[in-house]
Each structure stands twice: as C-alpha cells, then as structure tokens.
C-alpha cells in the first residue's frame, strides 16, 4: 500500500499543526516521522489514520481518496503511545476485538478467531499472557499486545504513535530491534512517530524530519545525518557546534577573525556555521580555522569531550579521540573536517 499526502493543512485555533505537508510513502516502507513536540508529526499520523481531519489537502492510499472514508473503513492499524488497551478485557479479547466487531457477513467463526489470536500472540511472543488483564502486564508487554491487536485486522498500513515513548531505556532498545525484524517479517507499510533521533535512525528505512508543521527533510538515516538540508535538521539530529558567522562574498568571518573556510553558495550576510562535535580535528595552535584553550576535559568511553574557549570569546564542546590526551590549559588549533553554513 502506498500513501500519498498532498498539501495538508490543519489548524488548532491560530496554531498551525500542519502547514502544507507533502509526503509519499512507498509500499512496504518503514518510515519515521521525527521532530520535536509540537512539530505536527502526531497530527499527520492521526489524519492518515482517520482519527483527525485536515482543514485542507489530500490523503490517498494506492491512489484512492482516503479522506472519503472514516477511520473505521480505512483498515489502518494504529498503535498508541499509552497503549490504549481495553482495560476490562483479557489480552486474548483485546487482540480478538477487531475480529469480533466485523460485520456478520465477513466475521470469522469462533475457532478461526481463536486460531488467529493465537498466531498473533505467538508473533509477539506473548502467548502465555492470553488470560491476563492489561493492568497485569509490563509496559513493554502492553505495547506488544497493542501491536498484535492492531495487526489482527490485517491492516493495509500500520501507524505507530511514539510506540516506545512511555517505556524505559532498556526495554525501548529491545523493542526497537524487535519492531525492525517484525516489519521485515510482515512487510506492511508502516509509519512511526518519534522525537528520539536515535530511534528514528536505527529503525527506519527513511526518515522525515518535521518542524513547526512543515517537513524539513526526507531522506535515508545516513542522508539526514550526513547531509542535513536545513539548519534545523543539523541542529536537531546529532549534536552540533553552532557558531554565528558573517559571510561576505564566499569568505567567512567569526567576529573580527577571518576563518580559513569557504561559504560555498551561501548568500552574504549573517549566517550560522554548523560542525559536528567529532568533526573538529585538533592540531597545534595556528594550524586551523580556530584557536582556543582547553577549559575542561571529560572522558566518554572512546572519546574525550573537551570544553574549548575560542579566542573570539565563544565556548564550544568537541569530541576528540583519546589517542592524544588533551589537558586543561592546552592551547590548540581546530580544523572542521566537515561543516555546513546556513544563512540566517
């Protein structure tokens, strides 16, 4: 099933949750909608599911207008952040719900329903919990049951709204891997919403980065990390050093100092220089674009994180390999191995 979204707009009062969103999702993809809270990612997901309606724009599944149908007829599996399991039903009945509410003409008989639920509980590896109630399960178990319940109706599309957001870090990591392999197995077109970049980069085939109701960039995980299209994406994904610079005809200045960098096609004027922490290479003073003094050093596993005050006045944090120990008070030169300059 392919999904196409065209020029979607949704306002809540004067706040534009979606401000002209276009998106194409290919069949069998596992797509991540990544953005800070309030970026519109959940609203987009809910509109695709039919749980919310846009003010204008189009949504189509396989070229068919999806907005002409309610959530009930869209055959979309939806997994909620807080699970939304039916608390008065056993795990078994939760998973069976979608099968039991089907119109009588197409409803499976009891034996077939039982077989299907068993199959789904096996798929999420929780068949031994069939008779429990949701309140007796852990968060990770509840989310897997919610997923089994959504899959029971053989959805054409699977939508997951911050599926691991309410879980602790360790369970979250396990479930990420598990979701990825599950998707590989069932191969249904899936979109999941997250504000956790690591989650998006690790699980998804493609990542859609959103901010303020707009799509900032669509690309593979490598793409959005290595070639961020906008200042927002650079700042949001991975940790970046940001310095305010002045561009004049391709030359770059930080305060009074001319930097040994080229601005490429960036227009003249006030701009921002973005460098990943680990892309700042350390050399002797005077050898690079920046000179500074090491203020403070901490070790983080394979890297040492140094706080460096530049001679222009700014203080930045860099990650350097530990083969050459930095010490407080060292005077060093810094060369950005890769960098981006964005106007504004």
């Amino acid at each position, binding site marked *: 099933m392919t999904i196409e979204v065209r020029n979607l707009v949704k306002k809540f009062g004067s706040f534009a949750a979606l401000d002209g969103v276009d998106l194409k999702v290919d069949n069998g993809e596992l797509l991540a909608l990544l953005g800070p809270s309030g970026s519109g990612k959940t609203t987009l997901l809910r509109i695709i*599911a*039919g*749980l919310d309606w846009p003010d204008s724009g189009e949504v189509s599944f396989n070229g068919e207008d999806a907005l002409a149908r*309610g*959530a*009930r007829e*869209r*055959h*979309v*599996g*939806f997994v*909620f952040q*807080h699970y*939304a*399991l*039916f*608390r*008065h039903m056993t795990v078994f009945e939760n998973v069976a*719900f*979608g099968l039991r*509410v*089907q119109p009588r003409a197409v409803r499976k008989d009891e034996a077939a329903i039982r077989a299907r639920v068993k199959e789904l509980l096996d798929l999420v590896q929780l068949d031994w919990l069939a008779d429990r*109630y949701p*309140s007796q399960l852990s968060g990770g178990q509840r989310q897997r049951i*919610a997923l089994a*319940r*959504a899959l*029971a*109706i053989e959805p054409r599309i699977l939508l997951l709204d911050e599926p691991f957001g309410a879980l602790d870090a360790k369970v979250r990591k396990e479930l990420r891997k598990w979701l990825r392999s599950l998707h590989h197995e069932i191969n249904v077109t899936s979109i999941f919403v997250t504000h956790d970049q690591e989650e998006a980069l690790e699980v998804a085939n493609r990542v859609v980065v959103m901010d303020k109701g707009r799509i900032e960039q669509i690309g593979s995980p490598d793409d959005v990390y290595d070639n961020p299209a906008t200042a927002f994406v650079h700042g949001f994904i991975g940790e970046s050093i940001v310095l305010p610079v002045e561009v004049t005809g391709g030359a770059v200045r930080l305060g009074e100092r001319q930097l040994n960098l080229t601005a490429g096609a960036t227009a003249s004027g006030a701009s921002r220089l973005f460098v990943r922490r680990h892309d700042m290479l350390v050399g002797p003073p005077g050898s690079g674009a920046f000179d500074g003094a090491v203020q403070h050093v901490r070790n983080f596993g394979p890297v040492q994180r140094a706080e460096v005050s530049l001679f222009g006045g700014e203080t930045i944090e860099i990650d350097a390999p530990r083969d050459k120990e930095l010490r407080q008070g060292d005077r060093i030169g810094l060369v950005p191995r890769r960098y981006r300059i964005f106007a504004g």
Partner: protein
Amino acid sequence: MTMQIADSVSLSTPDAKARLHAVAARENLRTEPKAVRIAIISVAVLFLTVFVVLPLVVVFARAFSKGIMAYLAALSEPEALAAIRLTLLVAAISVGLNLVFGLVAAWAIAKFEFRGKTFLITLIDLPFSVSPVISGLVFVLLFGAQGYFGGWLRDHNIQILFAVPGIALATTFVTFPFVARALIPLMQEQGTQEEEAAISLGASGLQTFFRVTLPNIKWGVLYGVLLCNARAMGEFGAVSVVSGHIRGETNTMPLLVEILYNEYQFVAAFAIASLLAMLALITLIAKTILERQLDEGHDARDH
C-alpha cells in the same frame, strides 16, 4: 520450621530494627495525650448518635409501636400503596431520563472540546444550588393555569401540574446532576484513546459504546443511578409544590408521611417513613460497595 528461622533472622537484621524504630517514632509523633484523643472521638461518635442513629431508631420504634400487624396494616392501606406505586413510577421515570441525560452530558463534556463547556458544567450543578421549592415553583410558573404554557395546555387538555408528569418533571430537574456528576470526572480521566482504538479496529459507534465505553464506566453509572434514585424517592420540596396533594393520586411517599403525621396517624406516618429509611440504609451499603469497585478500577489503571 524454616519459616520460623527466617523470621528470627530477619528480626535481628539492622534493617528490621530500623523499621521497628521507625514505627515507634511514628507512634510518638502523635503528640496528643490519650485523653484528648478519646475526647475528640467521643464527640464525633456522640454527635453521630444523636443526629443520625437516634432518629433512625425512633422512626422504626414508632413504626412498630402498635405491633407488627398495625405496621403491615398501615402499609397496605390503599392510600399508602398508591403513594408507593407513584414514588416508584416517578423514580423510574426521572432516573431513566437522567441516566440518558447524564451519559450524553458527560460524554459531551469529557470527550469533546466546544465553546461554552464551562458554562454547561456550571449549569449541570444548578439544581444543587437552588432550593427545591424554587425548582417546583418554576414549573408552576411554566405550566400552571396562569403560567406561560397554561392556556395552551388547557386548550389541548393536557394535565401537567397536579399530575404524574409534573411530579416526574420536578423530580427529574432536582436530581439531574447525579449521573452526570458521577461520570464526568471518570470519563475525563479515561480520555478517548480506547474509543479511538476501537474505531480504528473497525468497530461501529454502537459497538464502541457497548463494548468499550460502557464497560469502563459501568460502576460510575451505577453509582450515579443509585444516588439519583435515593434523591428521587426522597424528594419533598419540589414535588410538594407541583403535586397538589390529591390523596391516592398525587401523593408520593414523603408527601404522605407529612399528611399522615399532621393527621396524628403516627404509626402509618412512621411506617411509610421506615420504608424510606430502609431505602437510605440500602443506598448507603450499595454506595460503599460501588465506591470500592470504582477505587479498584482506579488502581488497576495506575500501574
């Protein structure tokens, strides 16, 4: 045997000792002298005895003062039977109406955002803040012979005041906050996600209501219905204004109690009153059970 050993071991660990100390410290924190504690508790118990238990005992004592036969005879008077029938009928009507109204109002308030929501919530509480007599008078002003709709009603030969419809209307008005009030916080807390999940799984509106919403709020519904019913059967002020006190026709149980009492028929008056008192006791017990059920539902949601 093993258990005993384990116990003695655990008692001698520093951890267990610390716990014992903590308990002792907490006891000491209650600084009031024993006498003060006893005095405070006695005041509370005495107050309850004088104002609640004693009247209840008096009601039953007076009802049975001429023996059980007189009691049963008083209750099987045609007038008494008519009052019981009318009270049950009116309670059934107003509880039914308020159940529907309460569900709809709670649903609207808990699950949708709309303009004037706060105003609606305030309005629902209105019957609690208005004297029941005023509530009754409103209906007289509306439907009485001199009222706004009085002429039209007379022309069409419809009797509202001094008849069952008027009594049912007044009772419904006075009791309408109960179901809504019980459900609004419950439904607000539960949110809409389970309903959304049901719909995305293909359930229709009715299926969602009966399979998901209703089971989640059933204890709240019962709780609201219980309180609504108790108040509907016991309502005096509003009903007194609109009933007309026609004997055997428009007297509910509380009205009949007053009439019989004023006519010095004490056994009959207290016999009817004892039925209302029993209703109150049953309501109290049922309420305690329902509150426990509601709390359990609450706990289950927390972890």
